């Protein structure tokens, strides 16, 4: 059942990714990207990593996707202009795809049988974050707070 689910999710995600790359309307492409995020979250669920999947949905569908669609909404569109085929983007994409394929094919872990891992609970993740990784966590928190305050200062009305 798991392999069937994997194939369904993979086809779904890849189709959405293809749609995100090729659709003419920018908004449709952005919404297809959201489907890709959901598909990847589903993959994490399938692997038993519930927390990562939920965090992915939370951050990417709830926040990043809304940011993307708002950016599309608030920036001027020049519909008529045809920029032609983007060769630079194609080269970068092929290079990334080639590099990833090469490294996946050369990795040792494909040949080794994965050890059976017990499902990771949210509690374990929380404990690890609060003990071993407490400094990185605090740094990220500080950075995000600084970014939030910076954004507020940027949009604040100037006092006359």
């Amino acid at each position, binding site marked *: *059942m798991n392999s069937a689910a994997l194939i369904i999710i993979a086809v779904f995600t890849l189709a959405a990714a293809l749609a995100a790359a090729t659709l003419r*309307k920018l*908004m*449709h492409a952005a*919404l297809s990207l*959201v489907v890709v995020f959901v598909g990847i979250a589903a993959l994490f669920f399938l692997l038993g990593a*519930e*927390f990562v999947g*939920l*965090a992915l*949905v*939370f951050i990417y*569908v*709830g*926040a990043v*996707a*809304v940011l993307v*669609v*708002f950016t599309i*909404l608030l920036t001027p569109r020049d519909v008529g202009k045809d920029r032609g085929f983007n060769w630079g983007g194609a080269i970068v994409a092929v290079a990334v795809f080639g590099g990833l394929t090469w490294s996946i094919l050369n990795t040792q872990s494909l040949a080794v049988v994965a050890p059976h891992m017990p*499902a990771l*609970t*949210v*509690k374990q993740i929380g404990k690890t974050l609060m003990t071993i990784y407490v400094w990185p966590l605090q740094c990220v928190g500080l950075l995000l707070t600084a970014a939030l305050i910076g954004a507020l200062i940027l949009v604040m009305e100037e006092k006359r």
Partner: protein
Amino acid sequence: MSNSIDQVFVHAKQWLLSSLTGSPGWVVQVASILINIFMLLAVFLTLFALISVLERKILARMQNRYGPNRVGPFGLFQPIADGIKMLIKEDIVPARADKIVHFLAPVLIAAVAILTLGVIPYGRNMTPFTIDGGILFFFAVGSATELAVFMAGWGSNNKFSMLGAMRAIAQMFSYELPLIITALPVVMVVGSLTPDRIVAAQAGYTFDLVPRWFVFTPWGAAAFVLFFVSGLVESNRTPFDVPEGESEIVAGHMTEYSGFKYATFFMAEYIGMFAVSGLAMTLFLGGWHAPARILEIIPSYVWFFVKLGSLLFVYIWVRGTLPRTRIDQMMNFAWKFMLPMAFTCVIAAAVWHYAGRGLRGWLWSFLVIAIVYTALSTLLDTGRKLAPRVYRFAE
């Protein structure tokens, strides 16, 4: 006796599944999931129909009129008439609309609302979808509502729709923060994100009298009020229905929807309201626990729906009482009052925990909340005098 009534739905499901013995494991699994989904939809769509007519009746009562009383006894069959009307109405899609997005928006919003219902424990052993991070699931899936609202506003290709969607997203984002942060103290105190564990942590009674619900601790009471207000905003209900402000922007993001699609939006709004009330009960009001020991003979799911009904009554009551707020008032309230108070609840819960969770903890955490509340109200007081409005350009 009480135990068998309490577990009647659980046993019924097991009996249904026992007819599948011998079939492979995944068939039983899928059947179990399908039964859960069917029950959720059946119960909550019925409740939606019931609440839609009850709301109109209660509002009418508050405004000293009759309300719907033509269809069936006391107008109770009104939802059936409404449903038939909505189904046979013409479905109008604007010519310049983005057809796909316009169609997908109500689908997504309804799906999201129904998904969030899944993680709430409705009774002893009655959680449709048990997941380790259930509270996180609720908020993660619920945050997709904003995207659905945006799709509705964008897909309609209408100024009013887009304005309504932007207002809705602005207020949903602002109030999502206090909503999540007020859930945090409960998660901290229980040490779990699983709704079942949170409900289990609220079992028992202090001095054999007061139930150990979190709403009876100072931080819990403050967090519950904040959570309830944020829930009102998240479900776009009066006094926070600025996104739909019918006197300004027709119906906000639902302007270009008609017939069944409009009904879907309406349904999603109510189901979102049920879900957020259900979560508030799970977090603060002891979920399905009875309020007194002698009342425990009444099954747990009955208590859940009694509590849900009372919370929904408060929703309707607030709608019948308060006028609509302005968007700038709402934003100021969210960022200047709700957010600091939500953080205070987190600190007060920590104080409560380290002062021993007893009477001493109660007093200390009450002190923390009282100090911050007083400081905030002094700081935010603009010193404006309340006086009758003076009309300069009209009599």
